[in-house]
């Protein structure tokens, strides 16, 4: 075979490989988009609130149907959640939906004084516990195959320094060796309360990587 023919064959083979690889990449991308859209469509139809971690908008959003209930970043004066870094810790990459494995209420305060609750519960003949809504001041979320997130609630518009007890810092540091990353965020009390309660009721987390 002449060197010209050999060169021609090599270039031809290379172009075929590139075309095949390009075709595979396009098919993969289409397949990923189908999975993403199918999941989103089913979440919308579910009629239950769900959490969205979106790398593109770099935001954590609570949605119901296809409407935004809140976006964590829209409440001013709070520490921003590094959403893209949080997303990296959800494994494997091919999974889109995650559920919460554990919630730990670190600190809470009652929303209503006992005296008021007593009067109202007597008047309504109801158990006071049904009326009470404890405000989670600090709580921790751990997702299955995902990271831990420590949520601190603060009075609206008043950023305060997050105080993490030494014991907990140590716990996080040691967990890091097992590959479990942890993050912290501050948000207002209403968002913290809604987040805690919907996750406790089994709300799913939709992770959008691109």
């Amino acid at each position, binding site marked *: 075979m002449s060197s010209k023919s050999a060169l021609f064959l090599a270039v031809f083979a290379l172009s075929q490989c590139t075309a095949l690889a390009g075709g595979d990449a396009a098919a993969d991308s289409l397949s990923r988009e189908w999975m993403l859209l199918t999941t989103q469509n089913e979440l919308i139809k579910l009629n239950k609130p769900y959490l969205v971690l979106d790398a593109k908008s770099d935001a954590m959003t609570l949605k119901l149907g296809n409407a935004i209930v809140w976006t964590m970043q829209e409440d001013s004066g709070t520490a921003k959640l590094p959403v893209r870094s949080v997303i990296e810790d959800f494994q494997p990459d091919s999974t889109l939906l995650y559920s919460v494995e554990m919630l730990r*209420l670190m600190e809470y305060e009652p929303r209503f004084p006992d005296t008021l609750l007593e009067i109202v519960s007597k008047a309504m003949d109801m158990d006071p516990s049904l009326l009470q809504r404890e405000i989670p001041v600090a709580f921790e979320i751990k997702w299955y195959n995902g990271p831990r997130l420590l949520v601190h609630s603060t009075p609206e518009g008043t950023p305060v320094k997050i105080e993490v007890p030494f014991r907990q810092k140590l716990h996080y540091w040691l967990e890091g060796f097992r590959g479990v990353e942890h993050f912290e965020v501050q948000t207002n009390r209403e968002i913290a309360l809604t987040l805690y309660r919907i996750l406790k009721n089994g709300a799913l987390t939709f992770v959008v990587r691109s």
Partner: protein
Amino acid sequence: MKIALIVLIVLAGLMVGGVFALAEKPVTIAPPETLAHFDSVLSVKPGEKDLAKEVKRLRKDIEKTIPKSKYIVIDSQTNHAYYRSADSVFYKAVCSTGSGGELTDPKSGKKWVFHTPSGVFAIKNKIVEPWWRKPDWAFIEEGEAVPTSNADRLDPNVMGDYALGFGDGYFIHGTLYERLLGMSVSHGCVRLGSDDLKFFYDKVPIGTGVYVL
């Protein structure tokens, strides 16, 4: 050497969470059953030929579900009502939603659960000076006999100046008990203070989406 060993034992204890376990007891949550539904839906993937068509259809379907105008969010977890768009909150009010309490009719055994239904709804009608047509449970709750005549069920004084119906007999309306706003004390309707109710009546058109969680 001894110190290193002690440090190692303490650290090992911490690794399993035994020595310095965090004080508050965690709530363990089992994976919800809905996850299996998603697995089953994703397992039926269209063939290569139909994939592009299916992606196009899904994009269209999802696009249709995006609220095209402002919408109401009722957060029954915090007892707040919002009028908002995807980007901004235009109005925020404290409300009262369903207590979650239960009532059983001692005669018939019929049971009512007083919760505000969650899901996606729309404002169906707007009423000025609404009258409440008391359902059976309102009489049973008070230990009174259920009247046979419709006229005996009507009460013009409890729903405030306006009511916005969002389906299945549920309304956003006023209340005589404004001091209880912020608490989950209603029988399922959404109660607002009179000024907030006026805002919602004036600004929210019929057809507006109502998202209740």
